[in-house]
């Protein structure tokens, strides 16, 4: 029992566990909107597109998070511009823009060597996180959660049916920008926890898992956030014993839970669907045998 409590003896582990939990929860909350809007790969793109911002920030002496954030927003604007003016499909546009930004960032880092540890950008560095960064993350998380709590209904409508949102007088532009900004900011924070390549997981997997478990958006947000916090805390904790990459442990845990849910979910899981299909077919046959001609229930009313 004592052995299991060892991680909590270390300050850096406690910080890592708590920060992971916070970020995991916030990302999970946003992931409900991200998966609904079809922005899953946008998250991946944003986390790569922040690299030039980071290197410029270092060169100019600005906070790394600010540079990252601006870079992400600029990339999103470029994507929107190209998509609206050409016939190129959305996924290709995302691909072109983020690879260009990432290449530009890597170029700058290679030409102007600096303190930037590319490894910690790509893989995260939660165990060595500085207190200043923790403060940053807490601020971002609080603001995000606040905005979502206040505005989730409008954001939901905008994600689901932007035309309707416009029709009832909501400022669609502001909502779009808000969501994008929250996404960019959270990506920057999550980057420090799990690294560029795995941010996508935090922004997608919890939402998808919750989507398989419920048909109500509000419940989906709760389930996702709970799962986000839980997996991040447990994942960070476990990484101590496995002596492996923290981000990796968290994401592996999240993906495993998703796969289990996929299989076992009560209504939308694979097993449940197959059983439901078999039952439906049997029901139809029964009805056909007992009554002739077969009239489906829907028509009789």
């Amino acid at each position, binding site marked *: 029992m004592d052995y299991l409590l060892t991680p909590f003896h270390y300050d850096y582990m406690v910080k890592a566990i708590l920060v992971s939990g916070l970020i995991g929860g916030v990302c999970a909350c946003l992931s409900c909107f991200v998966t609904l809007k079809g922005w899953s790969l946008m998250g991946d793109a944003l986390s790569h597109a922040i690299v030039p911002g980071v290197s410029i920030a270092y060169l100019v002496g600005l906070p790394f998070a600010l540079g990252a954030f601006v870079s992400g927003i600029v990339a999103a604007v470029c994507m929107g511009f190209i998509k609206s003016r050409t*016939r190129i499909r959305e996924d290709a546009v995302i691909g072109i823009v983020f690879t260009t930004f990432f290449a530009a960032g890597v170029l700058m880092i290679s030409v102007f060597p600096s303190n930037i540890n590319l490894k910690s950008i790509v893989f995260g560095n939660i165990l060595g996180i500085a207190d200043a960064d923790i403060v940053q993350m807490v601020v971002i998380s609080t603001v995000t959660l606040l905005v979502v709590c206040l505005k989730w209904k409008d954001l939901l409508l905008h994600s689901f049916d932007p035309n309707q949102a416009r029709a009832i007088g909501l400022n669609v532009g502001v909502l779009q920008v808000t969501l994008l900004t929250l996404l960019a900011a959270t990506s920057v924070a999550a980057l420090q926890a799990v690294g560029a390549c795995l941010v996508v997981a935090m922004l997608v997997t919890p939402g998808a898992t919750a989507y398989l478990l419920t048909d109500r958006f509000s419940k989906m947000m709760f389930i996702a956030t709970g799962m986000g916090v839980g997996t991040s805390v447990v994942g960070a904790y476990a990484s101590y014993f496995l002596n492996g990459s923290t981000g990796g442990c968290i994401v592996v845990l999240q993906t495993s839970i998703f796969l289990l849910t996929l299989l076992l979910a009560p209504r*939308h899981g*694979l097993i*449940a*669907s*197959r*059983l*439901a*299909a*078999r039952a*439906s*077919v049997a029901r*139809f*046959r029964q009805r*056909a045998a007992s009554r002739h*001609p*077969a*009239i*489906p229930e*829907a*028509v*009789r*009313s």
Partner: protein
Amino acid sequence: MTESHSQIDLTVSDVTVAYSNGHVALHDASFSLKPGTICALVGINGSGKSTLFKAIMGFVRPVRGSVRIAGQPVKTAHKKNWVAYVPQSEDVDWSFPVSVWDVVLMGRYGYMNFLRMPSAHDKQRATESLERVKMSEFKDRQIGELSGGQKKRVFLARALAQEGRIILLDEPFTGVDVKTEGTIIELLRELRDDGHIILVSTHNLGTVPEFCDQVVIINQTVLAWGATETTFTEENLSLAFGGALRHLRLDHTDVPGSNRNEILVLTDDEGALVVRPNGSKQAPVGKSSEKL
């Protein structure tokens, strides 16, 4: 033409299709079509029309029942190019970089060699098909540069080039002008006289009695099928459409209670079916090229 062509019929027996999310789209669907017919597949959206097409195309495998073409399973039928498919406009990527000629030649892929090099015969068939639908002058246009009716004709040409004996048309008259509609119907009649089976999925009720000699009425199962005169009735349509049909009885007589001059209009807002007092059915005046 080999003599087996006259025996290519379509038999659907007890087909039941359940999707992986548990939804049973079609159950115990049965009907059969002999060569030389134009058959309408009538039903509301969500009635299983597209599922039935997918079953004939081999995209879904029925959990029960079978689809047989000339007694052969669907896969064999495809290898022999017996089934041609004319898609809905919404299902086509019109900005794809292919020309009209490219698309029509695609109909011949089943006959070409491993490297898909078109023979002189392939090119001749493609040219003839284009001429038949009157699209020869648009040969080199990219497909997105055409009007709605022209786009439909290109895919018809592809089906002709493929020499398919069973032609499936998915909602062929949506987005098509009246003149093209007339051209298409005329072409379908020629193909029927040649011994083809034409299966048209539609919810435009008005045109059905005009050019379809058989109908299959579908709502999750086949409710009724057979010759249009006997099957395309008010009762069967009510079964199919449930409460989803507008039922307008227009009485233009001075004698109350007499239904001698009653006109019955059945419509789901797509294309109305007008039933005159003498029992004859057609689309409203001005919509079709046929005289009343």
